[in-house]
């Protein structure tokens, strides 16, 4: 494997992502997952004789949104095309896609690599429709056409990716972007976000590209990296053993972690692309594009930058808060609700240190069940001193499980902090009376015992005493004793 260092991998990714439209791309059937087989169908997606497609502009909007976010030029005029092939999950015998003039071309996405930021160029993003699904049971095959005609975008990168980890980083950044925009749910396991990888290897410094193999069936993030790693190794081995990589399509087998040949170049389909005569060219007006532009949500990378510069958060905190769109929105809601009373850094800490770890402990709770407004009530209670920080954590846990508001929990469990001087004075007096000897030692210079008395006071109040006050009043008592006034 030492020789591997003299090789370089060249990788291009083709990503298919389903669009979160209400209806299918070319008919009014619902675009949903998990319905009874063949219930979300109509003459158009069943390819009955005489049925005609109608462009779903919601799908176009989402595709344009994604393209804008990926810095891809929007083509004012694009064409739909037919990609012809026979398969039982493809009722028309052709897929409506875009070929010669896609809706957008020439973009890029920046990714984080070990060597810093890297720009991956994107060749094109185009709109197409998905096929149905085949379900094999025993030696019978069944066709479910609920998915047939649901909208997809295909995003094709240039071969700018040079390792499996870069491929994973690109995919992660792409997915994050699409999910953030509400364009895709990014679910690889359910197949709504899929990836094919074109992989080739060449000796470092060689300007020519090696012969590529297309690796299909990479249906989870974990496997993308593994499949590509395997394929790179395999191709290097072929070259080192004097062989030649052949142009072919290979299937990834996740159980054995290998890729297997599926079909060679000579078996490659001739898709006989031609312009879809049932649909006019897709013309996008400047108004439409600027409307979509205005509806773009702030992307994670931009958000991170803003959190650091505007809110003075650390890179790490900004990263944690923007990883999930819901969390970022929650944080921003919190800031809005707060209106400047509690410091933003503190709000961030409450989410990162308390809320997220509580949610993590409760598996399956991805988003906060507590309204930002209610969470802020709790934060304010702690920060203003009406309960202490530890009590605050208890209250949060209670809020998450009972869905009660902070005020209710504090009241019901009588958790309000004892902060009034008189009350605390009395408790400290009690503690001193009960521990005369220790107090004498404290006075005579055994400073360690200060903590002992604070502890006693907290014990007596079941932790509700305001620690700051306890410190102050105990200190005052010591001073008073020393000056002989007591």
């Amino acid at each position, binding site marked *: 494997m030492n020789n591997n260092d003299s090789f370089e991998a060249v990788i291009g990714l083709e990503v298919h992502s389903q669009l979160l439209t209400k209806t299918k791309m070319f008919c009014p059937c619902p675009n949903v997952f998990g319905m009874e087989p063949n219930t979300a169908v109509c003459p158009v997606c069943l390819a009955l*004789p*005489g049925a*005609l497609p109608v462009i779903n502009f919601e799908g176009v909007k989402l595709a344009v949104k994604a393209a804008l976010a990926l810095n891809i030029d929007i083509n004012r005029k694009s064409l739909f095309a037919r990609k012809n092939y*026979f398969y039982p999950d493809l*009722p028309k*015998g*052709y897929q409506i896609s875009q070929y010669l003039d896609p809706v957008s071309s020439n973009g890029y996405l920046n990714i984080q690599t070990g060597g810093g930021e890297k720009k991956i160029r994107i060749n094109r993003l185009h709109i197409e429709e998905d096929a149905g699904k085949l379900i094999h049971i025993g030696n019978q095959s069944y*066709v479910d056409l609920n998915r047939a005609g649901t909208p997809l975008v295909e995003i094709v990168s240039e071969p700018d990716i040079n390792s499996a980890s870069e491929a994973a980083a690109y995919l992660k950044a792409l997915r994050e972007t699409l999910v953030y925009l509400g364009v895709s749910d990014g679910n690889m396991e359910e197949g709504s976000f899929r990836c094919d990888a074109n992989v080739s290897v060449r000796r470092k410094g060689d300007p020519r590209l090696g012969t590529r193999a297309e690796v299909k069936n990479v249906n989870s993030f974990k496997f993308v990296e593994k499949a590509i790693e395997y394929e790179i190794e395999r191709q290097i081995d072929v070259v080192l053993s004097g062989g030649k990589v052949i142009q072919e399509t290979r299937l990834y087998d996740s159980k054995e972690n290998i890729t297997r040949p599926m079909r060679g170049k000579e078996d490659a389909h001739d898709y006989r692309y*031609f312009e879809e005569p049932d649909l*006019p060219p897709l013309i996008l007006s400047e108004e439409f594009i600027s409307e979509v532009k205005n509806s773009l949500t702030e992307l994670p990378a931009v958000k991170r930058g803003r959190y650091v510069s505007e809110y003075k958060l650390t890179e790490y905190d900004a990263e944690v808060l923007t990883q999930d769109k819901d969390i970022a929105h929650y944080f921003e809601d919190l800031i809005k609700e707060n209106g400047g009373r509690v410091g933003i850094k503190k709000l961030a800490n409450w989410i990162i240190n308390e809320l997220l770890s509580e949610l993590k402990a409760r598996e399956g709770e991805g988003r906060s069940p507590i309204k930002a407004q209610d969470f802020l009530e709790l934060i304010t209670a702690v920060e203003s001193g009406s309960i202490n920080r530890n009590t605050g954590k208890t209250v949060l846990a209670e809020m998450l499980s009972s869905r009660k508001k902070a005020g209710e929990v504090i009241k019901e469990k009588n958790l309000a902090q004892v902060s009034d001087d008189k009350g605390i004075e009395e408790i400290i007096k009690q503690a001193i009376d009960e521990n005369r000897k220790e107090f004498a030692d404290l006075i005579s210079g055994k400073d360690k015992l200060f903590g002992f008395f604070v502890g006693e006071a907290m014990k007596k109040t079941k932790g509700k005493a305001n620690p700051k006050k306890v410190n102050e009043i105990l200190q005052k008592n010591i001073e008073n004793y020393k000056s002989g006034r007591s």
Partner: protein
Amino acid sequence: MDDLCRLTIGELAGLLTRREVKSIDILNSYIKRIKETDPKVSAYLYNDFEEAVRNAEAADKIIASGGGFPPLTGIPLSIKDIFLIKGKKTTCASKILDNFISPYDSTVVKKLKENHYVFLGKTNLDEFAMGSSTENSAYKITKNPYDLNRVPGGSSGGSAASVAADLCAGSFGTDTGGSVRQPAALCGVVGLKPTYGLISRYGIIAFSSSLDQAGVLSKDVTDAAIMLGAVAGFDEKDQTTRRFEVKDYAGIVKKADKSLMKGLRVGIPVEFFSEGLDPEIGSKISEIKALLKELGADIVGISLPDTKYSVAAYYIIATSEASSNLERYDGIRYGYRYKEESGNEMQSLDGLYRKSRETGFGNEVKRRIILGTFALSAGYYDAYYKKASSVRKLIVKNYKDAFGKVDVIIGPTSPTPAFLIGEKTADPLSMYLSDIYTISVNLAYLPGLSMPVGTVKNPSKQNGVLPVGLQIISPWAAEDRLLSVAKIIEDEVKFRENAGFRKLDI
């Protein structure tokens, strides 16, 4: 009452409006005529008289309730078996759709139902509308009512024959390269193919999507205008329909007056009088030319230089689109599926596809699928499909230039009158040339109309005649002008009123 079937839609609508007859009377006249005559003509693939009676009774109720009703109310019509009608068999004259019952209505039929029409039955056609003689039907051969040994033309041959033989008041067909106009010419009826995009294609079985357009076959020009008005217009289910202004075609035609001919520039394209044209047809068209001149029109010689490539370009574009449009007939979801001789299902997917399509499609359909598949193949696309599309653009421009100089264009619809059954089946190319004058109109997305303007002698039948069709072409979306000019010519020629012209073989 027996003669009701011989009247035009305009005449029948008048009788209904004046409450002089009932729709059911009209229907009974047609049922009688069909029972007597259609066994000889074979225009229909099937009739549905039960449905027809229900439709007629419903129409009579609407008429009896007083107030206005749309012009096709209570009028018995036939429909080419390429339009889907909910709950009715639609085969496109193909074995591959042998058992196909449509679960939805085409937009045209939906509109006809809203007009309270009476559905008489489905008419025969060339399988998937591929042909010019209706001989390519998987089910039967339709005969020309003027000579039962001759073809009615195609692909809407059943529709044209049903109108010519008074087996319906009017018929809806489709025209991809001449499939309404050419059979109309051969059967002596009016055939109108409107501008591409004026009538919705939703629910019409697709042959060539960029060329297909529904059209009407009628007894006279007024009826064509009435029928067009009933079904024209934008449809959100067909994105190739346009938001044209749907005009009151029938009203416009009614007002058409000879004075309109004064100064009208009528173009005569030199290419439409080429060597393949039957000289007798040529002289009939010359008579019309002289007539128009007499009425004050300016006759202008023009050239459409690139239309000589029409047939070649058409057979690449139409077959390419067809090869893709017909992929859905795969034996998987509906229609015909091949079974092994034992009656068992095929065991391999590939075998199921191959056998179902091999035994389900007829020869002409297979020929065109193969042609189109070849034309779109990698390495050939540029030489064929792309080049044909460029030729199409040139033809569009030819017409645009011509319509800068003239208001309408006239010429023959078909180079020959109706030919004998079997005459051209062995030579597809000579069959393809039947549409030599009509094809360029589809390529240019323009409206075209064929109307009978006289007859020529039938060489194989003593005292027999065969109709001659005049084709009129107008600029894009100018159906009003097209129909008006046709109406003025009709009033002069009086084809229907002339017993010497109307000499049917039945």
